[in-house]
């Protein structure tokens, strides 16, 4: 169901229904999921409809730009590099595209939303909260519910570190998808006992995956290839 479509189509999956239909000179968009329906009228002759997963930070409102995934505590030995797999919630965006102009018209999700606070109540940040199990091998969740995050943790300190959460910033979140998998790759560099730097890697988890349209994109500085990172200063557990 993820992919590109023309202006006349209708797809259904369980209780989800997404339809575009022509009505004289206008296009009608209809989406229903559970007991919620959304209808929009589009004035357009021709164009492309894109349906793909987007950064899970839009529902029920754009409350924050941080995604926090919590998981079972993992103790990492000094100067070790380990890779784990986590899951993240999926939000699906419906875009209209004409030439280079792309417009988001709807975002929906099958996953419940929950927010949390990372850090103290005066200087912390609100985060989109998600609990994930820890997988040592890539899991295969339903791509309409959850995506897979490949997280490489690098403990650069001389001590043992316990990690049970990772916080990412929306800018630079790179989501890839195909019909069976939605994925992200990220890196977490533990700098001190309570400080770590997180960033996304702009690569698919396997070949043939398409890159999602980014809602939050950062302007690249020519010649500077450094990934956009977030510094977790309030601990990792």
């Amino acid at each position, binding site marked *: 169901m993820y992919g590109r479509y023309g202006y006349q189509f209708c797809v259904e999956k369980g209780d989800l229904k997404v339809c575009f239909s022509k009505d004289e000179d206008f296009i009608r968009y209809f989406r229903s999921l559970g007991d919620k329906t959304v209808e929009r009228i589009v004035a357009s002759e021709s164009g492309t409809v894109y349906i793909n997963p987007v950064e899970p930070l839009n*529902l*029920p*409102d754009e*409350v*924050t730009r941080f995604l926090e995934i919590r998981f079972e505590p993992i103790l990492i030995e000094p100067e070790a590099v380990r890779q784990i797999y986590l899951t993240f919630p999926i939000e699906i965006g419906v875009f209209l595209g004409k030439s280079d102009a792309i417009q988001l018209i709807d975002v929906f999700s099958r996953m*419940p*939303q*929950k*927010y*949390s*606070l*990372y850090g103290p*109540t*005066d200087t*912390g*940040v*609100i985060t989109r*909260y998600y609990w994930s199990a820890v997988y040592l091998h890539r899991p295969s969740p339903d791509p309409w519910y959850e995506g897979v995050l490949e997280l490489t943790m690098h403990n650069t300190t001389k001590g043992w570190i316990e990690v049970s959460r990772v916080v990412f910033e929306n800018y630079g979140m790179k989501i890839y998808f195909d019909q069976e998998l939605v994925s992200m790759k990220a890196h977490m560099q533990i700098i001190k006992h309570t400080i770590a730097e997180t960033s996304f890697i702009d690569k698919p988890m396997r070949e043939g995956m398409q890159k999602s349209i980014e809602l939050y994109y950062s302007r690249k500085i020519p010649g500077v290839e450094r990934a956009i990172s977030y510094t977790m200063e309030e601990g990792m557990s």
Partner: protein
Amino acid sequence: MDISDPETIFRSEGTILHLLTTPVIGETTPLDLVWVLIIFIFALTLIRVVRIQLKRSFGDRVPKSDLDFMTTIVTYLLYLATFLVILPYLHFDLSGLFVAGGIIALALAFATQNIVSNLVSGLFLMFERPIKIGDNISIGSMTATVQNIQIMSTIVRTFDGIYVRIPNSRLFTSDITNLVIHPARRFEYTIGIRIRYRDDAGKAISIIRDMIDKQPYALKSPGPSVYVDKLDSSSVNIVVKIWAPSLYWWGLRTELLWRLKVELEKNGIQIPFPQQEVWFNNILKADMKSVKEPPPIREIPFQPIEKEEKTKPGETHGW
């Protein structure tokens, strides 16, 4: 007149140049005034262009409050620069001002005490930044949203939509409560949730916790506190304290209480009315046989309301 000599032309009375270079106010000539006007118009245009460019360049990257603050600072700096550029054309002797203007400055200081106070307070507000544009604040008994922080006053809009201008000196010396400066805040249901003594408080707490957990804006961390607070005369009182994002707490607070009530009732837990047991010292004797049953409720058949006849314009009533 020798027209071949430029100096002669320049000094000749009646020529435009002569008129332009003849001092009219002190040493200031009309030509100086023209320059002042040109510089002023240029400065105004420049300020406008700079403001627009700032908004275009940073509008989508910098928060609106920060952008407004930056624009205000740049605008005032440009005004100051314009003033300094204009001064020489007006032949304004600053050294003279320092010597002779002491007394005037003192008099002005007294006369414009409030204005200066507002100005200085405004600058402190801009740099200290206890409030930003868009913040919800409480000052005294008023709760409002900050619309604009100007150099002399701050404009706020109350939650009733009323425009209020507060002089900066008053604002600066007031106790300001910024309701949204921290990312999260806690609220509680002050009356608490009351359940009957016969109901299971543990089950009620579990239901309340589950309901809170389903609310996106009820923060996971710091988590909510739900506990039995008081064994009251006719109820067991449960207190609920929830952390929420500062900008979303009110919506959550207003929605959740009713949902909790409905969910508790669905699970057979009721919120009791205040009740009191009365014990009589003597046994009351009442002859129940003499109490008659109330008369049966008589059904009244539907009767359509007769339409009133409307009088047409010009017609008189029957009386």
